């Protein structure tokens, strides 16, 4: 005897169950779980290496590099352990359990990606002007942020990148333009010429932002 159902159940439409289920299963396999997380760590590491090379002696670069490495590693760990639940009981925990709980809380509370960004940009500033290198770093950092977001939110990468395609293309052009401005020989000696180039780059970015399609 089965439990009788409501005689007139309201319906959520029967979608093409098998195909949708198979798609979902294929998309949510272990590779799709690990892929974005691994990509985020690798991109983060690449950005750190790109901004650090060639290594410069001195205290500030070493500090910035250390912060960048720690932040990228911690960010990767946070993504890897995102699905680990915190124990509900907070009393009568053993030392190991309490340490693990604090470690998880530390990983999830500190904005590691922001720290990594600041450290990497600071590392880049500490190097002599390399306009195309900086443009490539900008592309890498943007990719790092996007893939980190995909990994932590479970968003469909194709959909997300599809929506961002136009803006990202425009951003790439502006990156190249920024590097191009930096490579234009200064009109004359002095600080005024370089400041003018910066302002010109900012004006181009502002103009681009204003004409973005809604």
């Amino acid at each position, binding site marked *: 005897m089965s*439990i009788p159902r409501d005689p007139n159940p309201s319906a959520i439409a029967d979608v093409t169950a098998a195909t949708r289920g198979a798609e979902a299963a294929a998309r949510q396999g272990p590779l799709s779980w690990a892929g974005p997380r691994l990509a985020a760590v690798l991109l983060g590491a690449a950005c750190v290496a790109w901004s650090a090379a060639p290594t410069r002696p001195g205290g500030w670069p070493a500090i910035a590099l250390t912060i960048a490495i720690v932040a990228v590693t911690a960010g990767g760990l946070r993504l890897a352990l995102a699905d680990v639940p915190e124990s509900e009981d907070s009393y009568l925990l053993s030392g190991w359990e309490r340490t693990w709980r604090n470690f998880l809380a530390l990983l999830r509370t500190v904005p590691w990606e*922001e720290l990594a960004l600041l450290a990497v*940009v600071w590392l880049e500033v500490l190097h002599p002007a390399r306009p195309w290198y900086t443009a490539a770093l900008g592309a890498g950092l943007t990719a790092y942020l996007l893939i980190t977001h995909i990994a932590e*939110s479970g968003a469909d990468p194709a959909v997300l990148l599809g929506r961002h395609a136009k803006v990202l293309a425009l951003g790439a052009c502006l990156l190249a333009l920024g590097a191009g401005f*930096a490579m234009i020989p200064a009109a004359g000696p002095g600080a005024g010429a370089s400041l003018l180039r910066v302002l010109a780059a900012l004006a181009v970015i502002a103009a681009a932002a204003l004409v973005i399609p809604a």
Partner: protein
Amino acid sequence: MIKIAHIERSVATADPDAVPAAAAQTLGPSIAAAAEETDVRWRPSRHARRLLTLAGAGLLLALVTRRPELAGLAAPALLILGAGRVTHGALPGRLGFRTGLTSTRIYEGEPAAVDVVVSVPASAGTGTGGAASADGFDARWVFEPGRGVEPGSATAANGHAVRFTFSIDRWGKRKLGTATVTLHDRWRLAEARVALTLPTIDCYPSPAIQRTEVVLSKLPNRLGEHRSRVPGDGTEFTGVREYVPGDRQRAINWPASTRLGRLQVNTFAAERSQDVVLLVDATSDVGEPGRSALDLGLRGAAGAAKAYLAGRDRVGVVAYQWGGAHWLAPSLGRRQFYRIVDALLQSDTGFARGAGISRLPRAALPPGALVVAFSPLLDGRFVEALRDMRERGFTLIVVDVLNVGPPRRRGFADNAARRIWNLEQQAIRFSLRELGVPVVAWDGVTALDLPLAPYTRRPLVTRR
């Protein structure tokens, strides 16, 4: 009833051991359980904060160091933030959430599903005053199952309408838990979070298998399906006798009449029903959860109720608890089965006020009823109640659901205590048998027919 609209749903299927997507879909449409509208507060997402950090750092350092390439570094982040700002005004300030269950009542271990749907109500306004639509945002659901609820699929899924499958391993009224939805705008720069409390579901004890019935030798004068000893209008042939005026012509046995030279008629046994009262001892719940004495008692009672109701008997239930008993008068039909199981679910509540067995009304324990008791026989007062009922003339069968004993230990005192306990248990069962109350042991795994076989083969003699 609230109609859940025709919206595509996605099924969470990340767990390889989970109910497959196709199986989840075969659970059928859901019954609307709850609907609510909630104000939503959109905040900058973590992604937006990171982009802002990159843009801010790039611009600031570009101005400080006068390096235009650093301004270019900030450009992609600024563009994404700008695009998100443009569409931010179209986000709805109020959203509707609906919850549906494929079934509000399930058996232990039976898969079921809960559907959660987010939609934009017609009255929802936007920041720009325009019409909001569900296309303007994405939703990610996370299912946090309640106590005793085992998720059968992944506990996180994307989509405006999502189905989470689950099962419950032990009977009771269970809170399903919560579903938290995180909403993102299409640029994923603004997010909102809403936590929905999922409805409660009744999990029925899985009924034991029982195909045969214990039938009393003396049945009340009520039409039923059990063959009685008295002649009547049933279908079971009992003999031939001489015709007397008033007998129906169709009952004449022509071969016998021809042979004897006088009219002979066939006689048949009357078919009667009986009253069955299931007595569940909820005073002791010993053993491993899921296989405890109370679990076995409830499963056995549910199986017996099913079997006797299928045989057109009137079945009632009395749940005996600390402090009293609650009861359901015998009745017929399929609906009675669910009333009985609902009454059994109240055994979960522990202490219950009410009258003792001796004070139960006549309706709860009709005279001449067959009483089937499911008990571990650990509570002396319950055993006394059984003796009392036997002395009042009820015909009883006790199904012993005790499957655990005191733990084995090495100490002499422990061993002695264990032996004394065993002897005491044997004495209780012996005293009941001496009173004419059969006691059969049931392990909860085999069908109930097996321990009851000696009593289902022939009518149980009613002795007063």
